[in-house]
């Protein structure tokens, strides 16, 4: 799983990155966390406020620092826990 943090390095981006790392570790998900700081690259995702959270190339949030719980929720939706009832 590839998690990208979009932002030019202000405190919010750092906080989001930390929360994302904590969430991934707590959920035992193997995730690589990348920080995208170049404006041109950030623009490619089309978000309008930083920081942005991108999981597996899909924009999940922008403009806010999600809590560890909120990020975990997103991670679980994208990659359900093993043993979850996976019909279809």
């Amino acid at each position: 799983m590839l998690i990208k943090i979009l932002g030019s390095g202000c405190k919010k981006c750092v906080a989001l990155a930390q929360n994302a790392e904590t969430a991934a570790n707590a959920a035992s998900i193997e995730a690589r966390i990348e920080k995208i700081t170049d404006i041109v690259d950030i623009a490619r995702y089309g978000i309008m406020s930083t920081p942005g959270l991108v999981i597996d190339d899909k924009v999940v949030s922008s403009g806010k620092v999600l809590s560890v719980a909120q990020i975990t929720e997103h991670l679980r939706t994208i990659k359900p826990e093993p043993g979850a009832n996976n019909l279809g």
Partner: protein
Amino acid sequence: MGEIFVWLNDQLLRMQWLSDLVTLLVRDGLGLDTASRIGGSVHFFVYDVIKIFILLSVLIFSISYVQSYFPPERTRRILGKRQGLTANVLAALLGTITPFCSCSSIPLFIGFTSAGLPLAVTFSFLISSPLVDLASVILLASIFSWSIALAYVAIGLVLAVLGGTLIGYLKMDNQVESFVFQSPLSDYDNDGIISRRERLSYAREQLTEIVHRVWIYILIGVGIGAAIHNWVPENLIAAWLGQDKWWSVLVATLAGIPMYADIFGTLPIAEALVQKNVGLGTALAFMMAVTALSLPAMIMLKRVVKMPLLCVFVGIVSAGIILIGLIFNSTTHWFN
């Protein structure tokens, strides 16, 4: 009825009770005479810091709650449906209530432009956003008066609309870096804040985040204000910024442009300057220059906009600020 309003204004905004309390503290607790330099400085510092933090907390929280209804994506949608002057005016108005951190100015610019919003509209937004801010308007009312605060809003909005329109007339679209137009629009919908609980938690986050960001500017600003208030000799200030000097507004604006401080930090400085007989327009021009333009913001903008357009933008905003300063200076008698 008028008396009730005056009383409310005095107690809630000017916090007369707080000033009296601090006077007691300084006089009886520390044994200093508030008329003396040290006593006066301490009083100014303690009273202003506490007042600003209380107002800041209440204002940021309630205004962020309102702002949760206007994420940039929604603003872009609203603006996309209008044209011409209406769009400009709307952009200027929305600029005042859209949550805006200067680190978002670039993504926002790109987001608006790639969606097809005309440069004029985007710039009206970019000018009004840092300049007119609901919270700072109320702080202005608390430090000066409501009529001054409302006049500031009105003129700030006019500056934003005119500035944006002027930039539009100059047809400088070719001055925008091409990658801006090629940026995709995210299909992510930031209208996702729905429940009241989420709005409250958003308001709380904004409050924490903003206080973290600006507390140092407030302390520095109040510190400078206290120094001006009690320590900097009046003739020194008068020499540069005195009411009779035709260059005072110019000096104030030029000094403010490269600096960046949060608007909450500049208010105590403006307050102290006015008490030292600096013209109201001069003080306001300083405030506007510090918040609307700054070296960091210009450096960031340079990445999406070419030098000629950047110069036009800075030029128009500076000229507008100077003009506003001059207007306020010559009409001060209306506000007294």
